[in-house]
């Protein structure tokens, strides 16, 4: 009979505005990356792809990408081999431990990178342990909350305790039940959590830069350095970065929505 008035379109409008606000800069960066000159004019004066050539020819580009990859892969491995079993155990068997994990996952919000890193320099800087290892452990800890959250949601949908116990009652071992029953059914949440961990580790800047004081130039540190020397080349790098992360985001969205679909049908 009556059409809903303001309360129907206003929330949509707000979300659209947020999306435009966040996506606008990307578009601008892309245009900048293919501009000859673009200073104090509404539109650039000409278009070119030469900056893409300049960047990929730079001898620092590939090594810094590799360094970022090493960091990200190491963090993902730690997350999978250490954090995943702990979170499974807490979710399925030990609600008290789960409580404590909740607090732990608030911790990194309240101890931001800068506080951590100054302490890290003091405490672990002079230890006879590779600094890179300390860095990997630190970034793993920082990635824990997002990973924890993704898995938590995955564990919420089904009766995982029941499924895990049932698999054992059907004759399977604990490890077998975990691999054959638990893992396939948290796959979506696990993938989301690992991809978030990967991108966070891959794009980490503050801790890497300060703790290793430029000795370990990741892609992101390289990007900052480039920004001070060649704005257009930095834009190119930004776009490459964005496409790379965009692909990851696309995979994330595919996972999230395919999960929804299989549940609905």
């Amino acid at each position, binding site marked *: 009979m009556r059409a809903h008035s303001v309360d129907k379109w206003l929330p949509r409008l707000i979300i659209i505005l947020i999306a435009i606000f966040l996506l606008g800069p990307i578009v601008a960066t892309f245009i900048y990356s293919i501009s000859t000159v673009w200073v104090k004019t509404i539109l650039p004066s000409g278009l070119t792809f030469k900056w893409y050539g300049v960047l990929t020819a730079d001898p620092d580009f590939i090594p810094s990408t590799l360094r970022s990859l090493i960091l990200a892969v190491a963090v993902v491995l730690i997350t999978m081999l250490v954090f995943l079993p702990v979170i499974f155990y807490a979710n399925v068997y030990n609600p008290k431990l789960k409580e404590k994990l909740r607090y732990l996952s608030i911790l990194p919000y309240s101890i931001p990178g800068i506080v951590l890193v100054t302490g890290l320099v003091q405490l672990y800087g002079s230890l006879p342990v590779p600094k890179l290892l300390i860095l990997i452990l630190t970034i793993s800890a920082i990635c824990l909350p997002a990973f924890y959250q993704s898995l938590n949601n995955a564990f919420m949908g*089904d*009766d995982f305790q*029941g*499924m895990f*116990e*049932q*698999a*054992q*009652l*059907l*004759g*399977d*071992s604990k490890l*077998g039940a975990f691999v*054959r*029953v638990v893992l*396939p*059914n948290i*796959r979506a949440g696990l993938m989301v959590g690992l991809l978030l961990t990967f991108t966070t580790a891959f794009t980490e800047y503050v801790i890497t830069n300060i703790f290793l004081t430029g000795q370990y130039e990741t892609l992101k540190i390289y990007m900052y350095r480039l920004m001070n020397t060649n704005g257009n080349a930095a834009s190119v790098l930004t776009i490459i970065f964005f496409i790379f992360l965009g692909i990851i985001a696309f995979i994330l969205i595919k996972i999230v929505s395919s999960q929804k679909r*299989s*549940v*609905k*049908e």
Partner: protein
Amino acid sequence: MVNTDNFLSVSHLNISFNGNTVIKDLSFNIKKGTLTSFLGPSGSGKTTVLRAIAGLNQTFAGQIMLDGQDIANLQPNQRNIGMIFQSYALFPNLTVFDNIAYGLRVQKKSKAEIEKAVTDMLAVIGLTQRRDYYPANLSGGQRQRVAIARSMVLEPKLLLLDEPLSALDAKTRVELRNQIKRYQQELGITMIFVTHDQTEAMAISDDVLIMSAGELEQQGSAMDIYANPKTMFVADFIGNHNVLTATDLSKLGLVANQTDGQYIIRPELLEHVMPANLNGYAAIEGQVVELAVLGNRVEYSLKTATGHIVKAECMNQNINFTINDHIKVYLKVAEIKKVG
């Protein structure tokens, strides 16, 4: 020696969680090839006992013998006991076929063996057409049938069903209840069926075991427990009985051999149609103060001159009275049972 009477034998079982004793010195036997219901209100410890038998709670004191073997120290996957959960606990990533085949694959059976066993089982549960469906695409009743098939295909020594029907709607509940009884009889599996629903327990069980607060109240056939409850708890829980003291009975003019204690009168044994032969019968007279027509049957209450409210029940046929009428109901005096 093992005989069929103590196929499962639980002795002096004690279970505590965080210092609270949940199961108190519980002992009972289950006969081979029977269906026994554990009946009790929620929190009475039924599920805890089941999990101990299955090996899912391993911190307890006492002995659990299955088929002559002490199973207390075996892992759940070594016991050959199946268990059905209220939540079904199907594996959402596997089809109906693969769910049922899970245990056989763990046992590394041949492909042909698995195909045959699962196909047969699908026929038993009537889901042959759904073999490639995922659990998400099945109804609640179908899911629970798959869960039951998944356990039964392994031919367990004992199948434990933990409130398997609670998540289902009324109509499906009755259907599946009858199907479970049928599987039990056809395949001869020994089953323990946990429920808090008296009708369900009575409809399905050979034996009923009534629990309250972690203790055994009574074990026996459904009809025996219904007609001869040993404790007031059982009398109250199992039926809608009239409970009267010896004094009440004498006020109502009902019994000669009064001793102290509590007596029950089953509502359905009060007949408003006068028996042909009144020998051995007594009558209760009163005003109809409540009358509920529940379709196939009618529940009503009489208020007697002595002020007692007496509940009675009959089929919905030949009802020749209505609310506020004064009527007489007849009762075989021998049916007044003492509790205990």
